[in-house]
């Protein structure tokens, strides 16, 4: 899957780049689904010594085993594949805690994964100049319901139903790095029951 070009409309949304290997005391790579491709692309330009100091945390999601064996064969010092971000979260926090000065952090895949890992990395004191991010794969959004504050993952339509309170929400183009989420606001607040048909905006 090719790299995603986002429309330039949302000022609060992070701008994603392209992963490049940098010299560092360690390399922490966190990716989900098609995000594996960004790591595999980066692998074409590094020598074997790079991987000894690398730790790959990978969440395949719907891609199953499509990329996991290729990633494992890169020979990273540590390799982990987990079923969900939530399941991997403890390990991610520990890996960030164990980072030494000069560790490089590489994030790739969905905005949800990159946003959450970015917030964790920042909270752990990793300087933003040592964090790279590359978007690959689904453009589904992680949404926070502004009313009940619950997070709904992998939203592809507008409007959508909040998975916590059940209100129909529209997707406001406003992004919080702290929450790693876009804002969802009740679509029929001014005219209850008048809910527009769902449109698939994100895939």
């Amino acid at each position, binding site marked *: 899957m090719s790299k995603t070009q986002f429309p330039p409309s*949302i*000022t*609060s*949304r992070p701008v994603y780049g392209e992963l490049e290997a940098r010299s560092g005391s360690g390399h922490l790579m966190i990716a989900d689904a098609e995000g594996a491709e960004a790591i595999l692309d980066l692998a074409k330009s590094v020598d074997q010594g790079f991987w000894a100091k690398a730790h790959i945390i990978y969440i395949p999601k719907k891609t199953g085993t499509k990329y996991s064996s290729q990633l494992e064969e890169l020979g990273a010092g540590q390799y982990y594949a987990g079923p969900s971000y939530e399941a991997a979260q403890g390990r991610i926090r520990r890996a960030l805690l164990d980072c030494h000065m000069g560790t490089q952090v590489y994030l790739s895949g969905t905005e949800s994964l990159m946003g959450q890992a970015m917030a964790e990395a920042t909270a752990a004191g990793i300087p933003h100049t040592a964090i790279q991010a590359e978007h690959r794969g689904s453009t589904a959004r992680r949404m*926070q319901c*502004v*009313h009940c*504050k619950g997070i709904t993952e992998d939203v592809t339509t507008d409007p959508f139903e909040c998975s916590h309170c059940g*209100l129909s929400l529209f997707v*406001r*183009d*406003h*992004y*919080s*790095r*702290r*929450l790693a989420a876009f*804002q969802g*606001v*009740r679509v029929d*607040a*001014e*005219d*209850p029951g008048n809910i527009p048909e769902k449109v698939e905006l994100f895939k």
Partner: protein
Amino acid sequence: MTIQFNDETFHGDFTFKNSDWAIKRFPFPFHEDSYMYSVNMEPHTSYRPGSVFERTFDVDEHYVSEMKDRARVLANDPLRCQSLPHMTLAGWDLVELIMEAKAREYPDLFELHKDGNRWRWINKPLGIDDTFTFLDESTLPYGPMEYITRQTQGDFAVLDQRDDNLWMDAGMVTTQADWSLDFDIGMNFFEWHAPVPKAHEMGIFVRALKFLLNIQQGQPARRLNWTMTVNPLLDTSPENYHKWGVMKQGLTMENIGDKQHLRVELQTFFRLPRSNALVFPIRCYLISFNDLVTVPKWARRLHRVIRDLPEELATYKGFIDNRPLMVEWLSQFDDGSPTSDGIWPDDD
């Protein structure tokens, strides 16, 4: 003068009302017959005795009831007041700024007595008499920012300054025009303004930020902003939009004068001395259309501004559906005669 404080509500039965005094001093935001965004900053110096620009922090007849409404909103949703850990010192700066200004400018209502760091604060309208140690959080019932902003009208955004940007790292937000502190906390100036249409392309935010970064201690600035609110609702938060949004329905030629309110924000900006943070009070004033048209110049001008406002702005400000009705109702009060420059009522 001694202020007679109203006993009124900003929700439920909506008993909020402006006296003739409050109408006359209302900060009407339009200095000409049309409106477009601008960086309309001016020094926040004392101006026009009796007006809302006279004092550092204006106290009016709504003070006590607004503070009750704030306490109610906070009890329902404590996340309306947040302060990231590095902002506590800025909170103390704010305590000092507000207490000193109020005690100096309203000596009949507020007193501040200092004995070194031991301070005694008397707030007569709210019946508060507290003694605490300045810079010692354990001696106040709330964090310093929350403590003083539970006693001061208007929302407060406390902005940290670093990397040539301003960061919304603390705030007390219960009277807002549809933005969420809980969502926006930690954002920089451009990020929290992301949903505003047009102004980014016009370069408004780049110029405004440049101005704000250079605000010096003792040289505060101010500007007015405005929107529309149906019913005198202070808490028009996105959190509760699913409860108040429906109020925009059901306006008629008969009830619009009573229900539709012009909502004006007096925004001020102060540099804080110890933290170098910027505090951004956003004070909300409401006036019903019925009260507003008692000033003929304002009636004529509001009609023209609302009629000619670009559609994107009417949409962003949330009154596009009700605009035709507003214009029709206001047109009754516009005979087409010219209006004088500036925001003040004509003296006749």
